[in-house]
């Protein structure tokens, strides 16, 4: 496959974007940073499917499309299946020789928000992973149903306020922990699974390229800070992502063949999670004295998870 040079940003910037401006994502939205990076990682033809969500409703609003490649949206839950179908058709037509260009190399990619990935499209994704189609699924994890105004998803972390897991006088926001989608996808014995973040552009680009190059179903969870629902200034999207990775709220790692775990980023100074939480309106209430225990719990969860990741990395099992 034709991967592009990611040696440094200068090299990377010689790529010609295939994701165009004048889409209607919010200013500062990380979704498009991630999509642009994925598309700039390869010179190959792309067939992309998107689930319903902010990305989809903002990039194909009749009579405009922001996609310079083949792109399809069916519904909220089924992008993984849409690319499965397209990939199967590619194989069938290649065998028969009915493609317009039978030698064209192509990559199949699906994008979903956390809502469509962790929740409503979970079954569709699991099915496509199990069937082993040659595709890469990328979750744009902004930890809420942003497109419909910020409801909780199973990716919403404990303690966050959302419009359906409200913080109030009798509640500190969401009560449940975030679902561990990366572990679940690794348990599908997928050849490549990773969790990546756009601030670490190089590890993200590397991960994308690995996934695109790997035959079989690959899954990548990307943190996609949402200024609108997380309640921060749009200019801070990358700053917030830095806090997410440096507090280890969002560790960066990959799992190869379902077991070989590699940590891809180790912060020199691990920051206390308060710094990340305090930067966002959705966690504001946690700084009331009665909610101190939630911050403590979040910190404890982070520490334990990081410990687990490191042990798994060492154990190589």
């Amino acid at each position: 496959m034709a991967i592009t040079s990611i040696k440094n940003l200068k090299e990377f910037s010689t790529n010609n974007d295939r994701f165009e401006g004048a889409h209607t994502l919010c200013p500062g939205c990380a979704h498009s940073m991630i999509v642009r990076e994925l598309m700039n990682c390869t010179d190959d033809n792309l067939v992309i499917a998107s689930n319903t969500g902010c990305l989809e409703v903002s990039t194909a609003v009749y009579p405009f499309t922001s996609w310079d490649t083949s792109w399809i949206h069916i519904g909220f839950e089924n992008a993984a299946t849409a690319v499965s179908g397209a990939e199967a058709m590619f194989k069938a037509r290649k065998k028969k020789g009915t493609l317009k260009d039978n030698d064209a190399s192509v990559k199949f990619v699906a994008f979903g928000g956390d809502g469509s990935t962790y929740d409503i499209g979970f079954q569709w994704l699991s099915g496509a992973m199990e069937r082993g189609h040659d595709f890469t699924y990328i979750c744009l994890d902004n930890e809420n149903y942003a497109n419909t105004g910020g409801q909780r998803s199973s990716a919403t972390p404990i303690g966050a306020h959302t419009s359906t897991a409200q913080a109030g006088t009798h509640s500190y926001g969401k009560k449940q922990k975030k679902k561990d989608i990366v572990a679940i996808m690794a348990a599908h014995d997928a050849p490549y699974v990773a969790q990546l973040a756009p601030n670490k552009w190089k590890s993200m680009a590397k991960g994308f390229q690995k996934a695109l190059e790997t035959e079989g179903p690959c899954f990548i969870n990307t943190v996609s800070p949402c200024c609108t629902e997380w309640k921060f200034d749009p200019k801070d999207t990358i700053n917030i992502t830095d806090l997410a990775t440096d507090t280890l709220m969002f560790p960066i790692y990959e799992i190869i063949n379902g077991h070989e775990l590699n940590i891809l980023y180790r912060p020199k100074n691990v920051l206390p999670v308060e710094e990340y939480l305090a930067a966002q309106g959705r966690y504001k209430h946690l700084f009331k004295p009665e909610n101190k225990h939630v911050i403590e719990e979040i910190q404890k969860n982070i520490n334990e998870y990081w410990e687990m990741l490191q042990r798994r990395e060492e154990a190589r099992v």
Partner: protein
Amino acid sequence: MAEKFDLNEREVWDGNYAASQALRQAQVDVVAAYPITPSTPIVENYGAYVANGYIDGEFVMVESEHAAMSGCVGASAAGGRVATATSSQGFALMVEVLYQASGMRLPIVLTVVNRALASPLNVRGDHGDMYLGRDSGWIQIDAFNAQEAYDLTLCAFKIGENHDVRLPVMVHQDGFITSHTAQNVYPLSDEKAYGFIGDIVPVDDMLDFSRPVTYGAQTEEDWHFEHKAKQHKALMDSRTVIDDVFAEFEKLTGRKYNRVEGYDMDDAEVVIVALGTTVETARVAAQELREEGVKAGVVGIRVFRPFPFDQVRDMLENAKSIAVLDRSSPGGAMGAFFNEVSAALYTTPNRPLITNYIYGLGGRDFSVAEAKRIFLEQKANADAGHITTDIQQFSGLRGPHLGYFQTKRS
């Protein structure tokens, strides 16, 4: 190249096998499917043909019917020939994607083996699933027996893939009564069948990288209406293509299909209008009654969508009393099929008497005797000059009579 499959001039096939042979002869590129009784054998057979080299295609066994149709949409947008099969709850689970497929104008063929919708759970045939598809923007063709299931599945590809149509097509058959009953079927040779359908010529092919296309854009109030209108027009305009394909099929096989089928209708005074295997039962009843001097006729709707409003009217306007048979629980209204036939007849000068029978739910047998009784009730109406029964009645039901509404006579 696909392996050669030996066929006899006359085969004994059930409806499922007949449909799956049509998929094989069409050399469908991708089938994405999920099993459900009674349609399962259609996709099992496709899988077996792929496994044994009789089809060069991809069989994608997905994890639900919603995914089956989603996979079909992705595959169809990728430019090849696509089909699948389902029934009942599986059909219900597909509904979201049925609308998406037709909105994107993708010529997928869905063979629907009609079965009742739960609750209560029931595996037998009624038309609840078929009715659930009626506003989905698909062409819906109805086969009354195994031969027709075969013939019409072949026609479905040719109709849907026609560039003036570009719409998905359902081919219905009745669960068990057709799908699991072995009957004589006269297949075409593989060459003849494929020659009739022809190669699929892709439109807006996602795998044509010289022309990237976006499928499934968002349209709000300033665009949605225009798109839906265009889609409706395509469905209405498909009528002439369907007629042409049926005519070509007749030339090839001598078997003639019409969007509305009339039997003994030239001088019919009392008529049963029905779908599916019931048409055949009613025909037997009509012929027996004709021997007794009752001018009975039968109308079967071959193409349920686009609904043949004008042809239904032409066929029925000179009748005296008509029974429209709905094999679907009406859910608090007159039967949907009754409403459609009535609307067509309302625009005739004579406005024949018309009544509604709800029958056969969950596979309850519909006998010749029951058909005869319905004809005789129409005869009584015709003689009296008004409807003598409830306008809607349940037929073949145990327990006290269940019926609603009477004619308003001043």
